């Protein structure tokens, strides 16, 4: 007899010094269902998942598997109990191949306890084929894109027939197409009787797969209900404790001069013939599928990657050479899609991170003026609504949303005129997203030119004045706000129609 309830979390409380991270949380996950966990950053979702995965032990309460209380010692123990986890932050060995990474630590062995490479590659190939992934098991991980690697993490987690799969923001780095593939995988897992605990900020996709939804807020349970009884607005209200009137605070802003004008911008083998412009007060979007070249164009413009050919005119003056330093001096800055890698120095303080790009403002007469620096950083943090215990706190200790606000605060400190924002809301919660949208509108109102690259179509449609669609390294379409439609954008993105 199999119990219908596979996993039960009963009255779990977790204390961290000075903080109650989880306060008597209880919910049940039934066999063969997807249980979605929602909540803003800081609600306690990840802590809860780490308890189920054995990284933390609860201070009070119990975890029950098949009705039996278990004490999960560590992730290896969790794995032996059939619990497998896809982490939000990817961990892999870049120099190793796809196959070696999939079987990391559990390599197939031959009779002499040597790694059976042939067997390993055969099994990896079978696994990749079964999930419809096109890359070779011999490829080194460092040659794959973030989204490829995320997909690998997912198939790694499902490859050993787990009974419970925990997925923490699995879609934050993958494309729409891959997301559908992931949902297909989840359906297959459910058919086999496994259950999936799914954490996501993307509310629209939650409803595609959720059987039940549990919402946490500030470490407490708000509610746990069947998905059929809820809609997106209910969930948002439960998460933030109030009804969000408008997801996108778009406002019509009068447009000024062209601040950024890009003509015939090229980078051989990456993108070509890129033509676009942004006016003061305008928010322009870059839509397209993963790999369409959006990030590459933005990075080349900012001077992080080389480009060959084309004219880039910033605030009326044509640039012969694009460099990060030159761009910052000209008032053009870029928010990277990968904030941990390109945006932050995680082991240093909030203060140092925020003032990093504009230190010369505080250093004069031969020394650093700490009071001025502190005041300026404090002001930016208040403006961005950064939540941090102190300005000396290291950035690595903060949540994703706060980290993104710190990168933004850093650039606000430079007072730029043109902002290239690559996935500005990736992996951050609804509340923080809304704050970033509000900031974007505020910036547009003050006459800045904004470019937003996003893989979330609804936010592009909600926030932009114009959208350029990229496909295979080229701009295939341009739409004014009055012409916006998701179908049209997808058609341009896939490349079925062209201007």
């Amino acid at each position, binding site marked *: 007899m199999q119990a219908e309830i596979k996993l039960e979390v009963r009255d779990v409380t977790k204390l961290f010094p000075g903080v109650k991270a989880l306060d008597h949380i209880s919910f049940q996950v039934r066999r063969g269902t997807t249980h979605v966990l929602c909540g803003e950053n*800081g609600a306690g979702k990840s802590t809860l998942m780490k308890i189920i995965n054995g990284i933390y032990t609860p201070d009070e309460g119990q975890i029950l598997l098949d009705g039996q209380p278990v004490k999960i010692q560590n992730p290896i123990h969790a794995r032996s109990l059939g619990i497998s986890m896809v982490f939000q932050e990817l961990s892999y060995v870049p120099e190793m191949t796809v196959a070696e990474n999939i079987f990391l630590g559990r390599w197939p062995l031959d009779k002499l306890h040597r790694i059976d490479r042939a067997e390993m590659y055969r099994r990896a190939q079978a696994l990749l084929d079964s999930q419809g992934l096109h890359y070779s098991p011999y490829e080194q991980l460092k040659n794959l894109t973030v989204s490829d690697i995320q997909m690998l993490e997912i198939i790694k987690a499902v490859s050993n027939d787990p009974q419970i799969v925990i997925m923490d923001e699995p879609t934050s780095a993958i494309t729409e197409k891959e997301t559908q593939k992931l949902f297909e995988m989840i359906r297959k897992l459910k058919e086999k009787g496994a259950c999936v605990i799914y954490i996501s900020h993307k509310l629209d996709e939650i409803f595609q797969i959720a059987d039940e939804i549990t919402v946490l807020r500030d470490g407490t349970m708000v509610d746990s209900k069947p998905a059929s009884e809820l809609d997106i607005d209910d969930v948002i209200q439960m998460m933030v404790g109030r009804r969000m009137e408008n997801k996108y605070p778009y406002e019509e802003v009068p447009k000024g001069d062209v601040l950024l004008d890009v003509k015939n911008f090229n980078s051989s083998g990456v993108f070509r013939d890129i033509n676009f412009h942004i006016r003061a007060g305008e928010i322009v979007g870059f839509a397209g599928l993963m790999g369409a070249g959006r990030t590459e164009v933005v990075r080349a413009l900012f001077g992080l990657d080389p480009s060959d050919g084309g004219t880039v005119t910033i605030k009326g003056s044509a640039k012969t050479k694009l460099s990060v330093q030159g761009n910052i001096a000209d008032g053009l800055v870029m928010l990277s899609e990968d904030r941990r890698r390109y945006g932050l120095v*995680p082991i*240093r303080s909030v203060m*140092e991170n925020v*003032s990093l790009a504009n*230190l010369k403002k505080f*250093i004069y007469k031969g020394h*650093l003026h700490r009071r001025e620096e502190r005041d300026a950083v404090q002001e930016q943090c208040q403006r961005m609504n950064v939540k941090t215990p102190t300005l000396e706190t290291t950035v*690595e200790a903060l949540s994703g949303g706060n980290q993104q606000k710190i990168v933004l605060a850093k650039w606000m400190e430079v007072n730029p005129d043109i902002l290239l924002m690559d996935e500005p809301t990736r992996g951050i919660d609804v509340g923080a997203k809304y704050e970033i949208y509000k900031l974007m509108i505020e910036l547009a109102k003050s006459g800045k030119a904004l470019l937003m690259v996003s893989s979330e179509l609804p936010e592009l449609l909600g926030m932009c004045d114009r959208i350029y669609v990229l496909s295979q390294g080229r701009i295939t379409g341009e739409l004014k706000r009055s012409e916006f439609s998701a179908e049209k954008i997808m058609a341009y993105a896939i490349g079925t129609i062209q201007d």
Partner: protein
Amino acid sequence: MQAKRSKANLWETLKSKYAIFLVLVVLFVICSLLNKNFLTWNNLTNISRQISVTTILAFGETLLIISGLLDLSNSSVLAFAGTLSVMAYKANGSMLLAILVSIAVAVFCNALNALMTTTFKAPAFIVTLAMQTMARGAALLLTAGQNVYQIGDYTILGQGSVWIIPTPILFMIFFFLVTRYILNDTRFGRSLYAIGGNEAAANASGIAVNKVKTGAYLINGVMVGMAAVLFMSRVNAGLPNGAQGYETEALTTAIIGGTSFTGGIGTAGGTIVGAFIIGFLNNIMNLTSVNSYLQQIIKGLIIALAVIYDIYAKNKRTRKKMGNIEDKQQAA
């Protein structure tokens, strides 16, 4: 917004920030109780004079390690620059020229280190290891392996005093202040931390990474050059084989002082505290006649402990981070 710092928090900060200083104070008290000769003006100035050369090297090392670099060549470059400087003095008689020669040679060697690590992206470990061998070879070639004696008044910097304070100590204090100034008060210093903490982000924030790294090596060169003059004038000769193992002493000093081997973390104050910890330990072991072979074992143990502590502290931070990603919010 800003949570008030609680008392517990303040104690945490004190503990993490000044732990190494507390170690020094405790060590000082223990040493004073262990041997009555320890707490005397002569002994304390003696210790300070003994540690001054390696501590100056350690300041350069601190700047480099913070930015994710390293210098294993400083001992050999010191020997090369120092012997050349002594020879220049013997030929010419000008102390100023001798100092300039020493600094110029050391800066030149470090410019090569910088070129290799920035332009050719070679790892600092290998590059400076190669320089260590080359500079030692150059020093020996220059002197045909013979020590240079009869250096006359060259000894003035290493053996002289200003009022009652030996000059090497003054130089050590001077370079401490320089390092502190660089790290705390200049854009260059902040850039060092940023590059060591995350080079890609530093670059994307408009920091000229290669220029900063080159600058770090050049400043290191100045320090090595000055240390060379102090060393040779203290030992009363130009020793092409001198200062062997000083690179490890300098590294140890920086690491014990809390400079993180993985970059991005370290202070001038920590390094000088680290230097005194080593100085006190050496001194008390000599005063209490600990077997000199045993002394080596103890010193090695201390290095291992310092590194373990560094890793422990880092793990503590990461553990905190895992909880805090979710939980700091509520604390705020």
